[in-house]
């Protein structure tokens, strides 16, 4: 009886507290995330232009139609897709390889972990500026010199950032360098969660190293791997800083990306409607990528 009496005012207090606790975050999310997104969708149906004294008109899907007729925008889509298709597997495979190498008790493990993770704390703008120097054209540039040494003298010095074929790969390398440490840490932690008995059992069953990898390691790493692949894919589509600083979308639009085009349209040229439309397309693409990955993962699980 005393419990029931105490519960009623307690419940009211709890309801009030719940609302109050959540209120700042609720306001923040509504005003600064949900609101702007809805605003972007709305604006993308207009001809809103920064600074224009003309009244704003509703123009329907015009912005989108023009986007998909614009070779530069389509190139940005292609660049983003190509970038993701290369960076995600390469970065993940490399991170997994390093994690496997480190998955032994060792006094040096902490040191290596620190070393590989270091680039992650570098702001991308700093990374961009340093790598501009590393990609210096001419034989004395660091990357050129390295390629020269690796190719036993057959490499001709290239200007990576101004070469339409090499610019995007150059940015890929920069991104992989910066982001790999994060993935490695996650995968390493995931590896260490796999119980040793499973490896023992597999070894007893006569499985070789490769078979152990396929049947114990990979399944055990499913969650971290899915997480890491998803995050890297989304980050790959968000590519902006390096493009703005290192290549300005060039040479000849070889490195332009969705967000770079959105900023160029809305900020540099004042075409807010076009920038908003690109932002909406960007969101749809990223959402699509995430959903497709989740679907694939679920199917794989059902197959297994």
């Amino acid at each position, binding site marked *: 009886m005393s419990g029931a009496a105490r519960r009623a005012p307690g419940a009211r207090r709890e309801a009030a507290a719940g609302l109050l606790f959540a209120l700042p975050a609720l306001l923040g999310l509504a005003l600064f995330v949900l609101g702007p997104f809805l605003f972007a969708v709305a604006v993308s149906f207009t001809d809103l232009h920064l600074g224009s004294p003309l009244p704003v008109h509703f123009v329907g899907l015009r912005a989108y139609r023009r986007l998909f007729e614009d070779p530069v925008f389509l190139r940005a889509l292609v660049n983003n897709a190509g970038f993701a298709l290369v960076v995600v597997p390469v970065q993940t495979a490399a991170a997994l390889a390093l994690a496997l*190498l480190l998955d032994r008790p060792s006094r040096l493990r902490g040191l290596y972990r620190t070393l590989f993770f270091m680039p992650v704390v570098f702001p991308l703008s700093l990374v961009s500026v340093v790598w501009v120097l590393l990609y210096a054209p001419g034989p004395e540039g660091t990357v050129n010199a390295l390629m020269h040494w690796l190719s036993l003298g057959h490499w001709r010095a290239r200007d990576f950032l101004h070469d339409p074929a090499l610019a995007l790969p150059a940015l890929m390398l920069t991104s992989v360098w910066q982001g790999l440490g994060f993935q490695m840490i996650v995968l390493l932690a995931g590896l260490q969660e796999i119980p040793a008995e499973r490896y023992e059992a597999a070894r007893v069953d006569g499985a070789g190293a490769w078979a152990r990898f396929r049947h114990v390691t990979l399944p055990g790493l499913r969650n*971290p791997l899915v997480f890491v692949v998803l995050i890297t894919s989304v980050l790959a589509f968000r590519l902006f800083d390096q493009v703005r600083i290192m290549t300005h979308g060039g040479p000849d639009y070889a490195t332009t990306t969705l967000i770079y085009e959105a900023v160029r349209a809305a900020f540099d040229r004042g075409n807010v409607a076009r920038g908003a439309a690109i932002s909406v397309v960007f969101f749809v693409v990223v959402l699509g990528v995430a959903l497709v990955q989740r679907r694939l993962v679920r199917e794989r699980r059902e197959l297994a």
Partner: protein
Amino acid sequence: MRRTLTTGLRHAALLVSAAAFLAPVAFLVVGSFKPEGRILADAGSWRAFFPAHWTLDNYRDVFARVDFVRFLLNSLLINGAMVLSGLAVNSLAAYALARLRWAGRPFVLGLVLATLVVPFEAIAVPLFYGLSAIGWRDDWSVQVVPFVANPLSIWLFYVFFAGLPRELEEAARVDGAGVLRTFLTVVVPNARAAFATVAIVTLLFYWGMYLWPLLMTAGPHARPLPLAIATFYTLPPLRWGDILAFGTLMVAPVLLLFILFQRAFVRGVAATGIKG
């Protein structure tokens, strides 16, 4: 025999990889102490990492040409405010979602999940337009407030709180503590790991923020470090020594913090990944 070969190979692979990873960092730091003329000239040889001459000229130049201290203070202010207020706002919201019963809870939960999938870049342009239109730009607060409520942080806290045993809270409530008191005296002290993780993740993501200050700041008074180095890079004359010195100064404190607390860093980051 085979064991030592594979071990040897392992170590070799790790060493080479570590060297490859470390090389650009070493290039940055070592280069910042080299005389200007040698930086590009030495870049392709081992001299890039073991210079013949050392000098502090670049650092002197940086402080003469650029208001580095102001940019550092801006970054500290912006990120400090963001992390601290973010911890408060997001943990409270997550607790409300995880533990309390109140009207609107499913709605807010849905809102969090919905905004979780919206990358910042998708709303950068409309936010830039909207906030500029009401005159809120070119100061430190516009670089903090929009990012305080963070769905990822809320979700991290939420998962953690939901996993806490309820006995402690119930004990406190039985003793007559109100909801807030319970939260502050019982939950928070037991959630230190979550707070640390969220703080670290927030810092990692936002310390290097470049796009937003690019859109929202004009003059140098509110400019943070990542934007400052990018603008410094475009300011003629292009002196690589100065830029490398700026970069080293910029990353040194974070790097130092990281090296000191690397185990906590790494554990926190890994915890978020696995639970993901």
